[in-house]
């Protein structure tokens, strides 16, 4: 349990993300709707140059197939570039440590991981990646995958919007999100982080003599710029293997709080932007109450267990409370960065982390969080809406059998992507390749492997295994899961949005989705769906650990 001051900290941080989200939303709406802003004089020529360069016609509008094609084309192309950089980093510049190129299965895993906004890392950055790789391959994909998330959400919302005629233009969305939202925000955040003590240099690692006379190698590099997009873009892949538990990535409790705040900032902003983008401001309400209500449930579950100030895997700078808090937020926003080892978190904290990744919408990853919440809204509206005696409708559009089919398939992706490879990992004995794994109790071992694929499928990226999972099986299996977990739901939800284009809207008198009543039913139905789908596996993992009296997963 946590005390009053700690509760206050939680409330204060969540309140500040809510306030900044609501303040930032109008600007984001202007960017996504192409409303003129004062930045136009500066950025318009730049953006026009980009459009000319890539041969895109910014006035063209796309249907869902074209939009999806553009999304996948661009993302795969970017992953290919990053792959070349990672494999060839040994001969590329800015490699003062002389790191060799990555093995191609690890490079493949890494580019899919970063290209899907997952950032699962089967390597430790400080001993594997050159400055050039960190700044281009890694950071590049962190920006593009985050921008893609915002774009697909904007496209989906354009389709759902009453009177919609198209999903927009992916290239325009992509460029504008980068130039007008992510780059400016990250520049500011990076500077603040530098001011708070996070290094930003390409000067190479420094060897110093400590006061005790010993020598120490300071593993510094362009960290601040990476951390800013890692958190703001809900990426989560750190500069260092230990992620934000490492002092140079997260030196003080102040940076810790700031980094927690940054994870929630854009997902929350997009929730506020949703209502305005859809043309009905109140429709933000169920998304907001749903995601923050479930986040509150997650936090309550996590803080129910014993939270020791110190323990194995816990950084003494942050203690059990901040570590657990971070773990909940990093999974709820599917960011995946960590400020402690997951092995140090108590079973209920891990249970809560699972819930964040299984729901994927509390508030979820940048852009996609809102999309998943809309998926739940459609399922809920359909099942409970029938009970009002009318064919259920959302935003005035009748929910057809095809919509239900699409949503059910989207919902199916998650359990398949998680359970099939988890089973395969045990059945093929692939887990035995992990050092020390066979000696772990079943509850701990199962929790760790299930987590690996849950994190991959949810495009979260936090994991227990880390570089220990750098085996061909885990590299390929998780890469496949990450890709499917990212692009299949996006494709299906864009198809759903596309089918709403030009659909007849009824004069709304049916179930109101913009009120508190629906919002709470939404929370209940999400909990029901997720619990029904994953309870047996949570019982074999974190719940079993809890009932066995374990306090962490050190094993």
């Amino acid at each position, binding site marked *: 349990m946590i005390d009053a001051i700690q509760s206050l900290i939680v409330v204060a941080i969540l309140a500040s993300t809510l306030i900044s989200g609501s303040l930032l939303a109008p600007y984001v709406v202007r960017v996504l709707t192409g409303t003129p802003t004062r930045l136009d004089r500066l950025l318009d020529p730049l953006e026009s140059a980009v459009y000319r360069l890539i041969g895109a016609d910014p006035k063209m509008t796309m249907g869902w197939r074209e939009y999806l094609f553009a999304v996948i084309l661009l993302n795969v192309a970017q992953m290919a570039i990053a792959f070349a950089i990672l494999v060839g980093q040994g001969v590329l510049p800015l490699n003062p440590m002389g790191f060799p190129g990555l093995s191609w299965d690890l490079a493949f895993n890494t580019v899919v991981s970063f290209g899907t906004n997952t950032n699962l890392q089967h390597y430790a950055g400080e001993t594997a990646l050159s400055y050039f790789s960190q700044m281009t391959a890694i950071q590049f994909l962190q920006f593009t995958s985050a921008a893609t998330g915002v774009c697909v959400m904007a496209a989906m919302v354009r389709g759902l919007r009453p009177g919609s005629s198209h999903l927009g233009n992916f290239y325009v969305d992509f460029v504008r999100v980068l130039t007008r939202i992510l780059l400016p925000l990250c520049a500011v955040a990076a500077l603040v982080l530098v001011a708070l003590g996070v290094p930003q240099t390409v000067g190479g690692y420094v060897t110093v003599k400590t006061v005790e006379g010993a020598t120490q190698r300071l593993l510094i590099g362009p960290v601040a710029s990476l951390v800013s997009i890692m958190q703001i873009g809900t990426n989560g892949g750190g500069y260092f293997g230990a992620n934000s538990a490492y002092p140079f990535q997260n030196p003080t409790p102040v940076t810790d709080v700031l980094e927690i705040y940054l994870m929630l900032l854009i997902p929350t902003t997009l929730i506020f932007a949703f209502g305005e983008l859809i043309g009905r401001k109140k429709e933000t309400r169920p998304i907001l109450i749903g995601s923050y209500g479930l986040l509150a449930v997650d936090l309550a579950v996590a803080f129910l267990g014993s939270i020791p100030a110190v323990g194995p895997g816990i950084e003494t700078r942050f203690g059990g409370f901040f570590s657990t808090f971070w773990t909940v937020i990093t999974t709820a926003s599917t960011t995946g960065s960590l400020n402690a080892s997951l092995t140090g978190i108590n079973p209920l904290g891990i249970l809560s982390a699972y819930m964040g990744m299984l729901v994927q919408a509390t508030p979820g990853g940048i852009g996609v969080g809102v999309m998943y919440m809309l998926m739940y809204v459609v399922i809920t509206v359909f099942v409970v809406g029938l009970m009002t005696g009318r064919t259920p409708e959302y935003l005035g559009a009748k929910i057809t059998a095809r919509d239900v089919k699409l949503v059910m398939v989207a919902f*199916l992706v998650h359990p398949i992507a998680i359970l099939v490879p988890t089973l395969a990992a045990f*059945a093929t004995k692939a887990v035995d390749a992990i050092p020390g794994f066979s000696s772990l109790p079943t509850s701990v071992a199962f929790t760790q492997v299930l987590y690996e694929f849950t994190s991959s499928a949810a495009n979260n990226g936090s994991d227990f295994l880390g570089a220990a999972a750098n085996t061909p099986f885990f590299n390929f299996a998780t890469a496949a899961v990450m890709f499917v977990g990212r692009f299949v739901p996006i494709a299906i939800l864009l198809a759903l949005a596309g089918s709403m284009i030009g659909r007849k809207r009824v004069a709304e008198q049916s179930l109101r989705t913009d009120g508190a009543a629906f919002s709470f*039913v939404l929370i209940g139905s999400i909990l029901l769906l997720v619990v029904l789908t994953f309870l047996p596996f949570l019982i*074999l993992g974190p719940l079993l650990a809890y009932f066995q009296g374990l306090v962490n997963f050190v094993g």
Partner: protein
Amino acid sequence: MARHVPGLDRVLGRARVSRRPSALTAKTLTESVVRLSPASLLSNPVMLIVELAFFVVAAMAAFPHAFVPFANPGDRGFYVEVAAILLVTVWFSTLSDSLAEQQAKNTANALKQLETEVPAKKVVTEGWEREIVRTRSTMLRKGDLILLEKGDVVPVDAEVLEGIAMVDESLVTGESAPVRKAPGDSLIGGSKVASDTMTARVAVNPGESYLDQMVRLVESSKRPKTPNEVAITMVIFGLSAVFTIIVASILGLSVALGLSLDLSVLIALYVCLLPTTIGALLPAIGLSGISRLYERKVVAKSGKAIETAGDTDAILLDKTGTITVGNRQAVEMMPLGARTEKEVGEAAFLSSWFDDTPEGRSVIRLAHEKGFVPRELNALSLSEVYDFSAQTRTSGVKLHFGSSFVLPKGSVQRIRRKFFLEDPSEQGMHLSGEETEIVKGAPDSFLRSGFIVPKGFQELVDTVASEGDTPMAVAKDHEVIGLVRLKDVLKPGTREKIEAVKAMGIRPVMITGDQPLTARSIASEVGIEEFVAKVKPEDKYSIVLKEQSQNHVVAMIGDGTNDAPALAAADVGLAMNSGTEAAKEAANMVDLESNPAKIIDVVLLGKQLLMTRGAVTAFSISNDVAKYFAILPVMFATAFPALRSLNILGLGLQTAVLSALIFNAIVIPLLIPLAMRGVTFKPSSTMSLFLRNVLIYGVGGVVVPFVGIKLIDMLLGVL
């Protein structure tokens, strides 16, 4: 706002066709057993899976050794029990299906009986020869000519070509008075010719009439799924897929992790999780929805039409027949000049004595109630009757006093005939002696020469009209002495229905040919805010289109050929069976009783159908939580004793699985009555219906199985 809204049962009233005899017969039972064959379960995959599960567990019971390590040969008795419950679960499903189908067929057949094979007289034309061939109704084809004589039963739906006759439709519509049929009118198969002779053209081929369409709609296997059912089926498929993946993964993990699982327990979990409740009851719910319409003698041409009825948010209501009974009633005697109310009342009484229309009868009733029965009553027998004539637009009597009490020759004949023929050329008989002439009619018909109109006449006429009523003037010996106020009479129960409809967020719009002044007054009396006055039948089409352009789902009624385009355009078109073929063709529902007010019942029944589906779906899904908590702790208990803490219900290790399975099975027959009669609800706003149903079927669906499983477990413990 706090206006009382009656419950659905009161609004809808009693069903018109009894669903007795009870559907639970030996035939139904046999049918339900026959349907257990896997081939006939193909249309219900969830139940097919349950049956396959039964086969697996039955095999475990028969050959437990073959299933080691997933089975314990010592638990044979348990496997037998599980297998038995699984089979019963499937049987409950086929039983509900058979019951609903039987019930629907019973009601459909009750209506269908109206159309049994009857003799027919076919007219065969060869050159100038016309021959009458005696044949059977089933032999007739569309376009054939038939001869109908007094006493004949109309063999199939047809359209009158020649002749005018009275037809008794009471068997079909319940309306007792014979109806006059003239060329162009449509005849309903099963009605009886009460007088005269006519020829008609057969309008349908046998097997194409609405009744046949109706019977086809209740054949469970042939009935196409409605859009809504398809969507729910998607949810059922999706959830089944999820649970299949889950159970397969648990099975795989139990091997990989070396957990000792009993296959029968895993199968029990699988079956419990599958949406068996909604899977079992979905067909029954749809069929019963159709039955409930049939019980009210409304025939839907498709299941989709019933669903669309539930989506309706604007109903166009014809004033006459829907809101008002169609006849005006006298409510007040209004003297003019120096005349008294009594004088006007007595004059009105006399002038209406031979007027057998409902309006005329109402004048007599009013006068009688007020004690204005005239002394001249006896003289009426010697009176000369002026039938209503289109030229004068008046009717009345001429009384003769002081003569004998001989009934004037031909008067009885004329009184009867005036209902059939309105021949203004017929003149009354003139008798000598003291005479008084009393005439009543539309006020402006007295403005012609020959009548003395007192001062204030026009003002009084305008006042009555502006109050929504119709003035009728009464003149005695060519002097207008007063007015009778005729009021439109509201249909009993209409107000409640309108109230219910409005409570559910549906906009009633009244359509009438009346003047706006009258229309407003009547609309406000039944609580309708919107009305369209001075409507000609052909205007209805544009009204429907206008509503639809504002994104409303529109329901309307109609009976004339003029109404056909509007009926076809409306989302829900309810045609009157007494209406023309064109109207019935264009509509997607036909009311056999030709009661326009049924449109409201149809909408409410559509809502009830959708609500029932949603309720059972929500209940079925939320049930799963408790079943997890019943089975999972037991399932993993051997491998991980620590998980016994999850057994929050404190179920017996031996009985927990059986309890969950029994609950899962027994909930199906327990919900059959709900599925067949539909969710009861009180018409109210969407949001309050939503909250109420979410509480009952959603939250209730989570709580009820916890209690139910615990009770069954305690019972099993005692046994």
